[in-house]
């Protein structure tokens, strides 16, 4: 591989020298530079894709191109499996001079205006109480804020974006909430709309769970799920996926045969002990071969965002139906 790279570099140098001797240097050199530049970018993209798939070395990340491919797969799978739910859409982003590199994705995923019921009372306390027995003598003032039949429970509207993070090379979940009248939700309101478990995590990890970030494409402050742990989770989840099996997941089948027969039931709530030492099976312990066929790679790439969503979205209260994974099994 190193020799090939060196040979390509030398070829580029020779060609540039040849064209430098031409009297029309500028136009020829520009065209050749663009052509070789595009070839070089694609060459390195392919190298990075292959490198990151090597057994035992994959770091749980994906390229911008892989992100786009996985995102489009999500959109089509979601439309097919969940036509009754709000739809994820792919929004192309405007290319700028800075976004011309291969690490910049061409768009992002959008889930618009998801209704979240909220039992927060802080907003309602500022409004006058609505009296059902009102005889209607008061003329409705259109300048007053709408109260309607909100009562105690109010619906907040959330929009979610899945954006490619170029630094961590993983998808990143952004969210923004607003009231029905369009006012944006503040930090404490967004926190109270989170699942209870996520609220606890946020209390414990104030700066590394849900933070307010500058949206990389819209350049406005949005709330975001911190991406620092994403690659580790994805590396764990897909650790079996790179192994070639006779059937689906032959490693698991081998482990099932070694285990003893069933002797406990959940109803009895038997106690157990945690084993010390590392009896867990690591990738290096497995005596299976690594299959790098294009079909398996393409399948893996397509599933990345689907799998990642099953972890990330529930953390902010967005449920991902399991039928999506039946379809993409």
């Amino acid at each position, binding site marked *: 591989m190193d020799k090939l790279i060196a040979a390509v570099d030398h070829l580029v140098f020779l060609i540039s020298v040849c064209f430098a001797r031409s009297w029309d240097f500028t136009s020829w050199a520009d065209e050749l530079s663009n052509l070789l530049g595009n070839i070089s970018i694609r060459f390195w993209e392919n190298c990075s894709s292959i490198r990151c798939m090597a057994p035992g070395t994959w770091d749980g990340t994906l390229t911008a191109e892989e992100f786009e491919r996985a995102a489009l797969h999500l959109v089509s799978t979601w439309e097919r499996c969940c036509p009754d739910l709000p739809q994820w859409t792919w929004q192309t982003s405007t290319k700028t001079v800075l976004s011309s590199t291969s690490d910049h994705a061409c768009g992002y995923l959008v889930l618009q205006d998801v209704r979240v019921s909220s039992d927060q009372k802080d907003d309602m306390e500022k409004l006058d109480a609505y009296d059902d027995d009102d005889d209607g003598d008061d003329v409705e003032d259109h300048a007053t804020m709408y109260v309607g039949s909100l009562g105690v429970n109010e619906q907040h509207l959330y929009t979610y974006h899945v954006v490619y993070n170029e630094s961590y090379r993983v998808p990143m979940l952004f969210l923004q909430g607003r009231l029905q009248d369009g006012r944006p939700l503040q930090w404490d309101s967004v926190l109270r709309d989170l699942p209870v478990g996520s609220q606890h995590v946020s209390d414990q*990890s104030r700066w590394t769970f849900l933070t307010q970030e500058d949206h990389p494409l819209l350049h406005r402050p949005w709330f975001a799920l911190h991406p*620092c742990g994403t690659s580790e989770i994805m590396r764990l989840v897909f650790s079996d996926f790179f192994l070639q099996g006779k059937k689906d997941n032959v490693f698991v089948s081998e*482990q099932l045969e070694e285990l003893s027969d069933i002797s406990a039931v959940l109803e009895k*709530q038997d106690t157990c002990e945690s084993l010390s030492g590392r009896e*867990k099976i690591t990738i290096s312990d497995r005596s299976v071969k690594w299959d790098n066929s294009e079909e398996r790679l393409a399948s893996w790439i397509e599933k990345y965002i689907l799998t990642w969503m099953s*972890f990330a979205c529930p953390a902010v209260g967005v449920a991902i139906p399991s039928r999506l*994974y039946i379809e993409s099994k």
Partner: protein
Amino acid sequence: MSTPGDSPSVPAPRKVVVLFRATGDAPIMKQSKFKITGTEKFAKVIDFLRKQLHRETLFLYINSAFSPTPDENIWDLFENFGIDGKLVVNYACSMAWG
């Protein structure tokens, strides 16, 4: 074929064998194979594992595919993702965020 008005017969609840598999730095349980009624939700599996490992933060996922929501039906998960008559549930203790 049942006639109109007849109440449909309720099948006996079927058991699903769940195999817990540690990943990453998660501790391994001495007993990793259990039975659970198919009508139960995945939330029971999550709570069970939390109590067994004495950890609140656990990440559970099926095969190499996804993390089921707590309200997923165990039997449905087994029917669609079971391997060799068992539902393999992988678990990890590492924080996904932060």
